[in-house]
């Protein structure tokens, strides 16, 4: 998908004044985070499991080549095929060829962020193959020609009424002429429309939450069952997964599953967790005849061994964005590419370049909630700070910011001057504003005072002065 990450500030301004989006976000802020907290409290071992989840992913990353080869060996031994795709273009080509080999006209797709990353739908459409998104949220946004705004709840930016309008517009030609008002009716209509598409699809394409090296299995976690229909009904099942999805064993999967659903939706378990291993076996009455796994690198292997490696632990639960005050204010589309929120702010500069996505790691208050809820303990604020440093080193930061930082660093290295200037500023501010306790306007601070007052400094002088006073 075409990135608009460069326009982050404009995107964010537009998001803040979009009433439908703000309604949806208001629900998000209380829903997911409260349910996660309750689920974590119900499991006394939750923090220990998070530690182990982090360790498992670190171990897998340190031995990634070994586990990928082991995974391939097991898949091949059971009659499946593994394809290696260094770039997004390679993955698109491989999947396109596989679909063509089946003479496919339609592909039933289960939600896959990696498929979004490689812009697979556009490629399939160019080949005359219709991709059909089957996850309800993905289906809704496919009808609306929108990208997902959240990695596990792609249509979270929309209200029920917007969904009702979209269904009426697109399902009218199928004979559904009544505008629906209840959620369960909307779900039932989508189920009915998509059921036939499942039965007709030639190829099923899914992502994977994990690839299990021990058994050569792809593991999928969903609530709807759409991924399972996608990997059961069509004659070919294609799994698209990036290299860091591989984990060693089923025991490791058990640990990761225990933190995944709780972190994502606050459920004890998602409704469906499925292991697929190779094509259908002799005597099976259903299941695909062909099983292919496409393993995508797309820049990830270059992150190994660097200070940014921790980002590869991500299991895509979405907890970081559910708890992010910035995401909560502007939603996912403002980030301008596939992965929004804090994890998007560290992944996107890696995947499409810091020149394009330098705004994103700056869209953080560094409050640290994302790190505090991450099931694999990714130090997201530190990683964002790394990107800010790289952006600064490469002279990509705006000139006013660079000059401000230069002035700051000049002063910060001269403590006596710093104290004298801050003391002076404190007295000036106090002189002009203490009567009201706040300022409506301030020179050089229009960006702040346009929307809110600036508080007057409390009596007692600067922090330094008060600190000295207390210690003596």
């Amino acid at each position, binding site marked *: 998908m075409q990135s608009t990450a460069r326009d982050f500030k404009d995107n964010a301004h537009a998001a803040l004044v979009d009433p439908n989006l703000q309604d949806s976000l208001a629900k998000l802020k209380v829903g997911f985070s409260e349910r996660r907290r309750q689920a974590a409290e119900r499991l006394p071992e939750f923090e220990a499991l998070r530690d182990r989840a982090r360790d498992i992913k670190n171990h897998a990353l340190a031995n990634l080549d070994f586990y*990928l080869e082991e995974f391939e060996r097991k898949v091949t031994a059971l009659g499946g095929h593994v394809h290696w795709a260094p770039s997004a273009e390679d993955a698109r080509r491989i999947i396109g060829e596989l679909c063509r080999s089946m003479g496919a006209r339609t592909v039933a797709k289960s939600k896959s962020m990696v498929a979004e990353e490689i812009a697979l739908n556009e490629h399939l459409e160019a080949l005359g193959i219709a991709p059909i998104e089957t996850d309800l949220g993905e289906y809704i946004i496919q009808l609306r020609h929108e990208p997902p705004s959240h990695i596990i709840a792609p249509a979270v930016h929309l209200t029920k009424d917007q969904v009702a309008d979209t269904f009426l517009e697109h399902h009218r030609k199928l004979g559904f002429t009544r505008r629906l008002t209840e*959620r369960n009716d909307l*779900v039932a209509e989508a189920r009915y429309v998509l059921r036939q598409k*499942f039965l007709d699809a030639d190829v099923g394409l899914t992502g994977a939450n994990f690839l299990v090296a021990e058994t050569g299995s792809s593991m999928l976690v969903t609530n*709807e069952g759409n991924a399972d229909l996608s990997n059961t009904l069509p004659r070919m099942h294609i799994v698209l997964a990036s290299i860091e999805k591989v984990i*060693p064993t089923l025991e490791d999967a058990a640990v990761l599953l225990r933190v995944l659903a709780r972190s994502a939706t606050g459920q004890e378990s998602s409704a469906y*967790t*499925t292991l697929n291993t190779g094509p259908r076996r002799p005597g099976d009455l259903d299941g695909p005849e062909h099983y292919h796994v496409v393993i995508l690198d797309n820049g990830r292997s270059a992150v*190994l061994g660097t200070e940014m490696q921790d980002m590869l632990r991500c299991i895509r639960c979405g907890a970081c964005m559910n708890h992010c005050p910035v995401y909560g204010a502007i939603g996912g589309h403002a980030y301008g590419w596939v992965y929004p929120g804090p994890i998007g702010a560290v992944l996107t500069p890696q995947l499409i370049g810091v020149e394009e996505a330098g705004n994103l790691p700056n869209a953080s208050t560094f409050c640290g909630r994302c790190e505090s809820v991450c099931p694999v303990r990714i130090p997201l604020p530190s990683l964002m700070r790394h990107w800010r440093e790289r952006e600064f080193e490469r002279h990509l930061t705006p000139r006013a910011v660079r000059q401000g930082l230069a002035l700051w660093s000049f002063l910060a290295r001269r403590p006596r001057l710093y104290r004298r200037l801050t003391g002076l500023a404190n007295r000036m501010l106090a002189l002009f504003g203490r009567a009201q306790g706040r300022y409506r306007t301030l020179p050089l601070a229009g960006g702040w005072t346009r929307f809110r007052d600036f508080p007057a400094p409390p009596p007692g002088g600067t922090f330094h002065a008060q600190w000295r006073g207390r210690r003596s």
Partner: protein
Amino acid sequence: MSEARSQILDGIRRSLKRGPLSGDALKAVEARLAEPPRGPAVARAALAQPDKVALFCQWAEANNATVVRVAPAEVAAEVSAYLARNNLPAEAVIAPSPQLAGYDWSSQKMLSLRRGRGEGSDHVSITGAFAAIAETGTVVMASGPEHPVTLNLLPDTHIVVLRESDIVGGYEEVWQRLRARYGKDRMPRTVNTITGPSRTGDIEQAMELGAHGPRRMHVLVVRE
């Protein structure tokens, strides 16, 4: 193809500043695969068998399944009664498994059963379960000639006949059972672990049942 493969694997090794694993490092990961270490023990998953059954029932119901405990002789009658209670037709597609064939279906004169895989037009399916997990109220289905995957997914109502002794504490015991039954290197094509009916939270985050899979799941826990 092999060029792309080595491009990725060599790239990984270059970043990790080493060649392919060898010597002790290789032995260590091979040993870890052969004897997978378990994660932190979850107290909830380590209960005596009667408590596991109770915990399974509790979590299955919390996840919107309905559960009833029956004797083997009551299985067929309970299926008929469940269908009648819910105004469902007395018709079902049933998994062709010896376990299920062992129940007294002939006692239910009105119940019409078809053995085979699921089709888009089926309303009700009846299957066994390979195991069930007390920790989360999850049933585990292993695919094969005796258990087509479509039965778990296509019908509106899924009736699961679960033997009490197949309820285990946590995931790890399921993995052990799978390895014991199918061999460490030969998982069934599909293992579905299913916790309640299909659901979605994709419209305004409100949970709605019956997204693409069954709208209802009814579990018969069979005493032995």
